[in-house]
């Protein structure tokens, strides 16, 4: 659990983050959104003290993050950034081993961890461990960057626009992989982005920052239903509202009894993608299948339309 309590950051007369208080639940994905200059990155960087706050406290599992030196705190918190920031003079394995080496793990434990993470991120250790970052594709570099952030098994992973430099296809894959890994490792993720699609896709809770203030903090559906300010409404986009609602939940959660023709949708497909598939194929219903191929039922155009409508 991360408790941010009355945190303020001022540079001279310029208040970048103003009296923000929020609690981030453990094992969830919290996405901080806002325009550039809204203070979202500064807020994130105060959690691992890359930026020192002017006032206020941040507690991690009840412990003030000022009880230890900044570098020790940062070894306990994963940190992944845009453009990956891999060390160009070190191999993939050495990059991933960065924090474990700083923590003084023994060789065998480090090697095992590196191999485990490479496998988890679908990078064959025999092929990739000895490579240098410039020998990898953009998507592979980004995965190594996240693997490095997770190497010391942190409870908390901070991500600053981690997918910003990726092309759309690789980005979608990276987002899906991140969700899988989060479910597997149960890491608390705090991610900063300006991409609302990304926020709705990933977030359990979204925090909206505007001019240094936290203007709304809640579940994605809550933001669509009851935007706290005009800024939140603009950010979500009036014409996007129904689709935002549909992108939060999966097709599995909209299953109705019955049968339908066509290729079954995996249950993890978002309702938005399910709707899109129906519109494109001209069908009114599509079957939904579980991961093992078992047909769970169907989603219908009418059902999704109801779910996309303004809540009463």
């Amino acid at each position, binding site marked *: 659990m991360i408790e941010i309590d009355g945190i303020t950051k001022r540079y001279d007369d310029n208040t970048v983050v103003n009296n923000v208080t929020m609690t981030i639940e453990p094992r969830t994905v919290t996405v901080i959104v806002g325009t550039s200059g809204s203070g979202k990155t500064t807020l994130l960087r105060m959690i691992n003290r890359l930026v020192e706050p002017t006032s206020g406290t941040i507690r991690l599992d009840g412990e003030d993050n000022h009880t230890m030196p900044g570098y020790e705190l940062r070894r306990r918190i994963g940190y992944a950034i845009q453009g990956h920031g891999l060390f160009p003079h070190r191999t993939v394995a050495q990059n991933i081993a960065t924090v474990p080496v700083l923590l003084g793990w023994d060789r065998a434990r480090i090697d095992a961890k590196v191999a485990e993470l490479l496998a988890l991120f679908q990078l064959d250790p025999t092929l990739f461990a000895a490579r240098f970052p410039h020998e990898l594709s953009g998507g592979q570099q980004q995965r190594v*960057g996240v693997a490095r952030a997770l190497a010391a098994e942190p409870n908390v992973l901070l991500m600053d626009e981690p997918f910003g430099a990726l092309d759309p296809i690789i980005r979608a894959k990276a987002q899906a992989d991140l969700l899988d890994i989060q479910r597997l490792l149960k890491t608390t993720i705090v991610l900063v982005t300006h991409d609302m699609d990304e926020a709705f896709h990933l977030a359990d809770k979204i925090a909206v920052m505007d001019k240094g203030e936290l203007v709304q903090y809640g579940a994605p559906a809550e933001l669509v239903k009851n935007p706290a300010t005009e800024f939140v409404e603009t950010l979500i986009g009036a014409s996007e509202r129904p689709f935002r609602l549909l992108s939060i939940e999966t097709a599995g959660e909209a299953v109705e009894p019955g049968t339908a023709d066509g290729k079954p949708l995996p249950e993890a497909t978002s309702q938005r993608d399910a709707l899109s598939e129906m519109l494109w194929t001209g069908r009114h219903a599509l079957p939904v299948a579980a991961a093992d191929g078992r047909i769970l039922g169907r989603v219908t155009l009418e059902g999704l339309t109801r779910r996309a409508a303004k809540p009463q």
Partner: protein
Amino acid sequence: MRAWVPPILRAVLLAVLIAFLVSPGWFSPLLKPLVQDNAPAIYNQGSLLTLTLLHLRIVAIATAGAIVVAVTLAILVTRPFGAEFLPLSRSLVNVGQTFPPVAVLALAVPALGFGEKPTLVALFLYGLLPIFENTLTGLTTLPVSVMEAARGSGMTERQRLFKVELPLAMPVILAGIRLSVVISLATATIGSTVAAKTLGEVIIAGLQSNNIAFVLQGGLIVGALAVLIYDGLSAIERVLARRAGLFS
């Protein structure tokens, strides 16, 4: 030019240089036409090999000193606490470069006496600037995301310097050292005007006795040394740069 030509040329140059230093008598017929009757064609007031080694030693000592001081200075002024000394140290090192080496020698002799010492001082001062400038460039142009990742992963300031900053800046630092060595190799010859044992002795002896062969052999040895050392250091730089992932 084909890829194998430069290494072969270098190997030939090295072989000729070694042959000349070990057994200069073999080359006597080549230089004979340059001298007047009965004058020696090969330097005869000392061993060329010994002078070459002394020349290299003086350059090595002066460069080693310049590396230690310039790199330390550049590291200090790029730390947060040293930033305000950046302009001062830059101008100090610049002064070293604008001062003519002959003037340094002239000023240093009364203080240090004749011999190697004034020459070492002049070469040391002369070698500082390229190394300092390059180290500064190397340390201040590191990729922002890499430095951010180094801090974010919990490295202390010292760990960042030794594990990330210096290794990444090394190719640029080495380029400065290479420049400094080549300048020193040439400048060391004037040390012989204040009785330092360098290859300058051969050139000065040639000038005094109007013996062009002496001047030529002194100059050519220094030239060959400069080319070979320059090439050698360039090769090391390329290896380091490739390892630093700077050329993909």
